[in-house]
Structures are given as C-alpha cells and as structure tokens.
C-alpha cells in the first residue's frame, strides 16, 4: 500500500518538474522575444525581472498593444507555473509522508540513511552485510540441524527425554526409580579387553599393540604401525574414547616420568595432525555400543590401511601430493586412499 502511494507521488512530482521546466523555458523565450523594442528592454528581459519589464512599457500606441499582449502572456505562464509548483509541493509532502512510513518498518536503522555524512561512515553498508551474514548463518544452521538430526553421533543413551520420564516416575510413585542403563561397550572386564587385543595382534602382525593401564581399569593401547606411525588409543571398556596419531620417531612418553603417557600433545607434523582428525571422525563412524568388539575390529582394520600413508597415491587425482600433504583420508568402507579435498 505504502509502495503504491510512493510511486504515484513520485510520478506526479516528476511530471510537475517536467512541466515546470517547460514553462520556465517558455517564459524565458517569451521574455527574450516579446520585448525587442529597445536594447535596454532586451537587457532587462534577459535578466528575467518582471517588475522592470512593467517599467519598460509606456512607448507609442502600437507598442502599448504589444505590451499588453506580452504582459497577459506573461501572466498566464506565471499562473500556470504557480499551480505546477503547488502540485510539486503537494507531491513532495506526500513523498515525505511515505518515507516516514518506511522508517517505521526499518526501525532505527532507517535513520542511518538520513545521516548527512552517509558516504563517509560505512555503518549502513556494514549493517547490510551483517544482516546478510545473519541470514546465511540461519540458513546453514537449519541445514546442519536437519543433517545432524539424521545421523546421530551421540555416544550416550542418557538424554533429556529419559530424564523427564525419570522425574515423572518419581513424582507418581513417591520413591525414586533406579534408572538402569542399557548394557553398553564400556562394561567389559580387563581380561576380556586383553584377550581381544591379543586376538587383534594376531590378526595384524605388522601392527604392534601394547596395553598399559595408567588410568586404572581402563586400557590405553600404544600402537606402532610398521615404521609409519604411532598411535595411542584410550579405551573405556571396549569403547574408543580418544585417539592421537604421531610420527614413528615421535614419542608419547614424557621424559623423566615413568609410566606416564602424554595423550594430549599433537604431532609436530601436519600429516599426522590431519590423520588424527580423520581417526577421530572414523572412531565416531565405527561406534557401535551393541557390538563393541566388531566396532573396534573395523576401526583397527581402517587404521591398518595407513601403513601405505606415504606410498599410496590418491584414488581420484592419482597424485601423491596435494597442499604438500599425501592422501591422508581413507575410505571407511573400501579403505581407498584419498586426499582431503578429493573425498568422494
């Protein structure tokens, strides 16, 4: 609604301006043509001063009739000019009215548009950029939400919903209900873990596994894969909790501290930092609380494919280097080597 009023006022105003310009041109033409009696009148007419024109009249009879005609012409033109100027003014007030309506829609930010130093301060343009950024962020967040709700990476069954039912049960029966967790991969005994690890060791002869327990019952596996890499895997029962991959010649042990494993500090090489990231992603991929032994086994098989980290070219681009890195990603299904950006 506001838009239609706006355009009408604008077109009306523009039309009025156009007519005013025509009329002014006519006026000047009249002033230059109609008073060619003497040089002084011409000069006066060129100045466009009406009062002086009136003073010029008063010659002979012929000149008088001509002068009357000239004055009447002049008067009609000036009258129409006046009416057009009023029209323009009215459309201007209409426009001012509609712009105030827009400012209501835009809020305070519209006031920025009225800043006299508009072009010098970049607030308005940066505000527009930030609005756009906000819109994009909202869009991405919605996409991420739909994707993440489909692939649940949650490693615990204890969520807000079960909490709510627990609270309800308490209120109904007046006594707390013991919440029994489902059997998951974390409640495995130490000997069970040991036997499974020995089984893996037999299955992958070029991968040495060493089990240490610096944190009590939970095992930490120190893995050396051929002469390519070393890895530390922290287990909780039989669930993989943490992986750190380093170069073959880097150490996990802290100097001067016996039986102390540094599971936090990253490798100094970019390749192994990338491999650590991919290994953590694979850990989530292979996570299966109902069949933890199978999950760990498939993870080990995947990790074992890194024995060709430096020698295998990328499946897609068939090159060895991309961004000065070898193919650091291994397909979780067929264990093919890919660069990070060549992933299918």
């Amino acid at each position, binding site marked *: 609604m506001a838009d239609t009023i706006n355009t009408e006022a604008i077109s009306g105003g523009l039309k009025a301006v156009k007519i005013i310009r025509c009329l002014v041109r006519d006026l000047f033409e009249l002033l230059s043509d109609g008073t060619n009696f003497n040089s002084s009148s011409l000069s006066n007419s060129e100045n466009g001063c009406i009062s002086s024109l009136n003073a010029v009249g008063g010659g002979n009879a012929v000149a008088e009739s001509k002068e009357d005609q000239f004055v009447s012409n002049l008067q009609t033109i000036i009258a129409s000019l006046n009416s057009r100027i009023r029209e323009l003014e009215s459309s201007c007030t209409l426009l001012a009215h509609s712009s105030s309506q827009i400012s209501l829609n835009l809020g305070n930010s519209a006031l920025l548009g009225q800043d006299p130093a508009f072009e010098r301060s970049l607030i308005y343009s940066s505000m527009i950029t930030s609005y756009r950024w906000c819109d994009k962020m909202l869009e991405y967040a919605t996409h991420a939400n739909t994707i993440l709700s489909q692939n649940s990476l949650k490693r615990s069954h204890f969520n807000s919903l079960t909490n709510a039912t627990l609270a309800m049960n308490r209120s109904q029966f007046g006594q707390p209900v013991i919440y029994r967790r489902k059997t998951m991969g974390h409640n495995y005994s130490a000997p069970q873990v040991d036997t499974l690890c020995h089984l893996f060791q037999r299955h992958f002869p070029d991968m040495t596994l060493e089990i240490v327990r610096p944190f009590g019952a939970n095992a930490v596996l120190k893995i050396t894969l051929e*002469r*390519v890499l070393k890895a530390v895997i922290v287990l909780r029962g039989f669930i993989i909790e943490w992986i750190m991959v380093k*170069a*073959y*010649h880097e150490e996990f042990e802290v100097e001067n501290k016996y039986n102390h494993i540094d599971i936090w500090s990253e*490798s*100094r*090489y*970019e*390749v*192994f930092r990338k491999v650590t990231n991919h290994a953590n992603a694979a850990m989530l991929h292979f996570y299966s609380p109902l069949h933890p032994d199978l999950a760990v086994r498939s993870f080990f098989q995947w990790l074992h494919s890194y024995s060709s*980290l*430096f*020698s295998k*070219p990328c499946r897609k681009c068939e*090159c*060895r*280097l991309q*961004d*000065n*890195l*070898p193919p650091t990603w291994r397909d979780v299904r067929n264990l093919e080597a890919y660069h990070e950006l060549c992933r299918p």
Partner: protein
Amino acid sequence: MGVVSVHQYPIPEGKSGQQVIDHLVKCLETLGATKTGTFCVDCETYYSGPNINPSRVLNIIHNSEHPASCFALLDTGTCLVCDTNFDQLMLTMSGLYHSKKSTKMESKGTRFQLGDFIVKVGSVSIGPSFRGILIEVEYGPCVIPNYCWDLMKEFMGGFMSSPRDPHQYLQGKMNDIFTPIDTIQQYNDHFNSIRKSTAAATSTASTPTHQSSSGRSTPSAGIAQSIPTKQ
C-alpha cells in the same frame, strides 16, 4: 629427523650462480614456502701423516641442523659422530692428520619450510670461489626412504627437474631408518664430486701453461678418485 635427499642443481650456461639461486628462491616463494632462517654445512679435509700407511683422507663435516655434533668421515666409509670438541682434538693430532685450509668447502644458504617439507638452497664454495648449487629436501614425517621416495620426487618436480633415482648412497639404504649420518654421507659425496670436477677443470686449463699448478692439483684429484672405489 625425516628423510633427506641432497641434489646438485645444474647451472645453465650464461647464468651466474646467484641468478639461479634467486630464480629458485622465487619459485619456492611462489609455491608458498616460508623462510625459516639460514643453514651451513662445512667440510674440512685432513690428510694422514707419513706414519699412517696406506694414507687416508679424513673429512670433518659440521651441519648447522645438528649444531652440537661433528661428523668425521674417513675415506673408507667409516663415520664417527662426536661433540664439537673433536675439532680441538684434531688440532692436537696434527702429527697424525694435518689439514689443508684451502680445501675447506661449505654449502651455505636459506632454509625454507613448505608444509612438512624443508628445502635448503645452498651455494657451494671452496674458500671464496663459488662452485655450484646443492639442494637439500627433507620430508619430516617419514623415516624410511623407500616409503616416501615417490612423494619426494613429486615434490621436487614442483621446482626443479626431479631426479629419476635417489642418491647412490641412499639406494643401498632405502629400507633402513634414516639417520643424520645419511645426510652427511650424501653431502660428502657431493662435495667430493664437486672437488673432483673443479680439480679436473683446473688441471686441464693449467697443464699446458703452468707445470707447478698442475702438480698442486694432483693430490685433490687423487683423493676424489679414491672415494668412489670405496663404495
């Protein structure tokens, strides 16, 4: 310590060594390499005295990458890694081994880092005179040359004509864990071949005119010839 491969960079005719180095540096910087300081590998040659039979040549090499160590290489291929104090020890053994200051060689230049690769562009000089360019490429994450040779070859192809095969010394150790001695051995071989080529050039240039200067060049030529036979 990763795998290191040292290569001699040919200087095309009509270009000075500095021009070639500038071109290489420009290439590396375009690839995104960052300067991480300078490096220097120097080699001093000692000759055995009359009471050691058969006569031996001993090369003492220092590498700025291992600033506290000193590498002593005998022409039989034996390598001794020791503290830098060994230099003083050599002075006290001047009766057994004596050095010849004019034969001191060094490869000096800038060190670049490009991802996990370290590239060192060094200009080789004997005394004040320029003798050639040596390029050292190190790949840090890997310790077995055989695993990463193709990778390094591809990397070297990015800024120089990549070599078809690894250095002769490295070929015999492709499946062993790489050690700093392997780097030094490669440098030693390159220094010897550069010395040999300069000796050959000076002897051919000077034989018709100066008898005395050709006589001076023979010992170094003799040393250079004796080394390939040991390997």
